[in-house]
C-alpha cells in the first residue's frame, strides 16, 4: 500500500471519519436474500457497499471419515473469484481464500451449531456431506464477516434432497427437512489501523490494516472462535475493546439473519 495514502487514511480516522464517510464503528448497510440459486439445496446473496457474495449449499451422500464413523461432514469452501476484483487471479486457492473458509468453518464447528451425528444415515457406511461454497461476485473487503453471514443464511435456507428407494439422491426434489441450526455463530472482524479500531473494512482499508481480529460471536455474547491477522501486535486492552465492538455488531447482523430464512 502507498504510504502517503495510508497516512491520509490514518489522519482521517483520527478525525473520526473513513474514506467512504462512515464512522469507525459503522457497518455498511447489509442486504441479505435467500433462495438465489435453484440448483443449490440452500443459497444466499449478501451485499454491503460494493461487496457482493453468493453462498450455496450442496448436500450429498458419502462415506464417513474412519475416525468419526457416525458423523456427517460440513465443509466450507471459499474462492476469491477473478470475476470479482482486478487483483484476484485464476489458479489454486490463495492463502486469503483458505483463511476465509477456515475461519467461517471454525465458527460453525466450534459453536456446535448443529449435531454432525444427525447427518449419519448408516454408521460407517453412509452420511450426509454438506458442502457450502462462498464466492464473491464483487469484492470490496470484509469477506469473512459477509461471507460468514451468507453461509449461515444459506445453511438456514437449505433443505435435504429426496432419497429414492435405492438410496440414491434425487436432486430434483427437496424434502422439507432442514439443518436445524442451534446457534448462529456470527463472525465480526475488527481492524486496527494505527491506534484506531474499525469494523467492516472496505478493500482499501483492509490493505492499510496493521492487524485485525475476527471474533465469532454467539447470541449470548460468548465467543466461539478467534483469528488474529496482520503483523502488528494487539494489546489486551485493545482486544477487550474489539470484543465489545464485535458483540454489539453481531447482535445487529443476527437480527437480520433471523429475518430472512427459517
Amino acid at each position, binding site marked *: 500500500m502507498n504510504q502517503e495514502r495510508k497516512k491520509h487514511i490514518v489522519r482521517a480516522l483520527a478525525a473520526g471519519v473513513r474514506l467512504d464517510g462512515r464512522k469507525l464503528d459503522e457497518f455498511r448497510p447489509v442486504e441479505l436474500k435467500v433462495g438465489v440459486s435453484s*440448483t443449490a439445496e440452500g443459497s444466499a446473496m449478501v451485499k454491503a457497499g460494493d461487496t457482493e457474495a453468493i453462498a450455496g449449499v450442496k448436500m450429498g451422500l458419502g462415506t464417513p471419515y474412519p475416525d468419526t464413523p457416525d458423523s456427517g461432514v460440513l465443509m466450507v469452501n471459499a474462492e476469491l473469484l477473478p470475476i*470479482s476484483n482486478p487483483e484476484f487471479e485464476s489458479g489454486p486457492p490463495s492463502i486469503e481464500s483458505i483463511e476465509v473458509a477456515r475461519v467461517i468453518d471454525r465458527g460453525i464447528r466450534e459453536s456446535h451449531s448443529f449435531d454432525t451425528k444427525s447427518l449419519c444415515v448408516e454408521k460407517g457406511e453412509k452420511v450426509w456431506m454438506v458442502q457450502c461454497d462462498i464466492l464473491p461476485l464483487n469484492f470490496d473487503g470484509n469477506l469473512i464477516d459477509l461471507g460468514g453471514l451468507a453461509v449461515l443464511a444459506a445453511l438456514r435456507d437449505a433443505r435435504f434432497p429426496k432419497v429414492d428407494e435405492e438410496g440414491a439422491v434425487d436432486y430434483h426434489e427437496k424434502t422439507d427437512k432442514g439443518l436445524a441450526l442451534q446457534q448462529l455463530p456470527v463472525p465480526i472482524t475488527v481492524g486496527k489501523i494505527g491506534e484506531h479500531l474499525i469494523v467492516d473494512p472496505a478493500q482499501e482499508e483492509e490493505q492499510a490494516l496493521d492487524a485485525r481480529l475476527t471474533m465469532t460471536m454467539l447470541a449470548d455474547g460468548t465467543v466461539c472462535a478467534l483469528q488474529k491477522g496482520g503483523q502488528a501486535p494487539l494489546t489486551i486492552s485493545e482486544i477487550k475493546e474489539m470484543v465489545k465492538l464485535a458483540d454489539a455488531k453481531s447482535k445487529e447482523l443476527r437480527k437480520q439473519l433471523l429475518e430472512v430464512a427459517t
Partner: protein
Amino acid sequence: MAYEKRISGRALDEPRKITANAGVIKKADGSGYFKIGETAAYAAVYGPRECHPAFMRNPKMGILRCNYSMMPFSGDGERVRPGPSRRSKEISMVTKNALLPVVDLKEYPNTVVDVFIELPETDAGSRCAGICAAAIALADAGITMRDVVPAVSVGQVDGTIVVDLDGAEEHLDENAAADIPLAMVPSTEEITLLQMDGIVEQDTLFRALETVKPALHNIAEAQRRAVKECYQQQAGGDAQ
C-alpha cells in the same frame, strides 16, 4: 410419437424468460448478467490490461481471454468441483471464438482483455447464457465491437425442432433429443458458435438454423437494451 406439446408449455420457437442487465459488477471495467429460465450467468471484463504471461502477448493487437466457470452448487446434481475441468476449458475456448469476430483489439497491442463468466445456477444452455452475458460485459467495458453476440440453443426432440432446450428436454431419452448451441452476429447473420450432440438429418439441421434466427435477434435486442439502460442510468445519475 411426435413432440408437439413442450414440457414447459412453451411454443416450439419460444425461448425461456430472459433477463439482461449491464454494469452489475462494480470493480470490473464492464459487466453483464444474463438469465434465461433458470440458467443464469454473470460476466466481467477486465482490461485491456498488461498481458501476463508475456509470451502470450501479441505486438499487433490485444488478445481476448475467456474463462467459463460453473459455481460449485450450480449443477444439476452433485457439487461441481471448483477449478478448471476438461469441459470448462473447452467451453472457454468456444466462447472466445464466438466473441472474437465482433471485437476489435487492434488499438490495444500487447494487452489482454479478460472475460470471466460465472454461473450461479444452470438448467441447460449455460454456454449460450455465458456468451450473452460476456457480450454485454464487453460492450459495457467500451471495447470496440462490430455488433453484439446473442446465443441460444436450438434442437430436435422426437423429430420436432424446438428453440432453447431446457434441462427437462435435454434429459429426455438420449436418442430423442439433439442439442445445437449457437451464436450469431445479428447484422450479418454469421454463425460464430456451432456445436451439436445428437443425431439430426441434414434437412432438419438446415431448418433448425433458420428457425432459431428470430430468437437470436430478440436476444440481441435485449442485450442492446441492457447496455443502453445502464448508460442512461449513469448519465441520469451524473446530471443530479
